[in-house]
């Protein structure tokens, strides 16, 4: 199941673990990324709380957690090569995996059609 947030994150649910990243739209808006800071494995994140930081040449931006959960894995590939976020934001350039506090929280997020409407 693929869901989206108004802050331009995507979430892919498999069981009770969600993989989270930023959308193509967000990556395009940010421009060339030069730095990514990911949360620590084991960190407790809250819905809409700060999860990660990305920097383009010009400025830093926050990436938020779409839901409450515990970080189980982070993607070192995007730390080593931030440009991966620009080339494959919704695939290989996932940010972190989250063991959700309440899987049912996912119902409250936007589906793809609703996100596409949002970005126009």
């Amino acid at each position, binding site marked *: 199941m693929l869901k989206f947030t108004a802050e331009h994150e995507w979430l892919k649910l498999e069981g009770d673990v969600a993989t989270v990243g930023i959308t193509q739209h967000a990556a395009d808006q940010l*421009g060339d990324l*030069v*730095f990514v800071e990911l949360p620590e494995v084991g960190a407790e994140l809250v819905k809409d709380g700060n999860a990660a930081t990305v920097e383009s*040449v010009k*400025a*830093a931006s926050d990436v938020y957690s779409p839901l409450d959960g515990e970080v189980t894995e982070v993607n070192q590939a995007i730390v080593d090569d931030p440009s991966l976020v620009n080339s494959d934001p919704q695939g290989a350039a996932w940010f972190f995996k989250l063991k959700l506090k309440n899987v049912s929280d996912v119902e409250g997020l936007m589906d793809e059609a609703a996100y596409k409407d949002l970005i126009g």
Partner: protein
Amino acid sequence: MDDQAALRTTPLHALHISLGAKMVPFAGYDMPVQYPLGVMKEHLHTRAEAGLFDVSHMGQVIVKAKSGEYADAALALEKLVPVDILGLKEGRQRYGFFTDANGGILDDLMITNRGDHLLVVVNAACKDQDVAHMKANLADCDVTLLEDRALIALQGPRAQAVLAELWAGVSGMKFMDVREVPLHDVPCIISRSGYSGEDGFEISVPEAHAVEVAKALLEHPDCEPIGLGARDSLRLEAGLCLYGNDIDTTTSPIEASLEWALQKARKAGGDREGGFPGAERILGELANGTTRRRVGLKPEGKAPVRSHAKLFADAEGKTELGEVTSGTFGPSVEGPVAMGYLPISHTDAGTQVYAEVRGKYLPMTVTALPFITPTYKR
């Protein structure tokens, strides 16, 4: 939306839109921050080939003595700038700055001897204040802001080759020469100078012909349009100051490590020693040193450290030393670069300091400027 309506545009505005530029407000103008290539590729292209920049938002000001004599205009402007303008030869340009009574910097600028007058190019954000400052203080001169000229910068190792298509004589110019030359039958004022650390030219064009000259230059396969985003990363790698960030009214030229811009004639013992605002402090600092200096800073990790980040002597953030004044990612250096002010005790190359970024103290090393090797054709 009201803000957008109030933004000014340069003569190349429609051209930027047609080239797919992402526009942002800058110093009251709607300017291109990047084109479809993106900031990284635009920066790298400029150092590899040739980049074309619209800098028409900057102020181009004519200072002409009522007597018509260059010397009178030069001596008048020397009352505001701690630089040798009288000794500047015709067809030559020099870097300078307006100082204030406290020895701080009001703006930095380029001054050209145009024979019977001076051409002064100032920053866009300070344009109006600079013109008022000159009008108020240069009583025997006419000070005219040119409102009908564009300014195009062409920078990079292939800049000469690109410009040569329009003017074969370009190879005769050396760094800081200024010539009046027809490009495409349009009379232009060209200086061999720029803000990138690369060889290049700054071309003043009558606004009615700005688009055709820009397009003619862009026709060359090596020439790409470059936005303000890359302009900033290029100048930072080159160790060049940005007024408002690295220099302002709280920084003296000596603290800013710009003492090289002052010629002997204006220093202690010189023919025209002092005679500019803040001379007591500035000449005092030349004699006795300053308490702090602008230095290059290289973050040890990958995280950019940006302006206003506080600098500390220790990794725990106990002893505050100063502040970062400019910081970004340097595509040519392949890592973050920054500049800031540190106390003299901490300005030797190799000194380690710590910058506070998002609650962490990131190690930075004091590094000699520039971060890249400039390629000026001296």
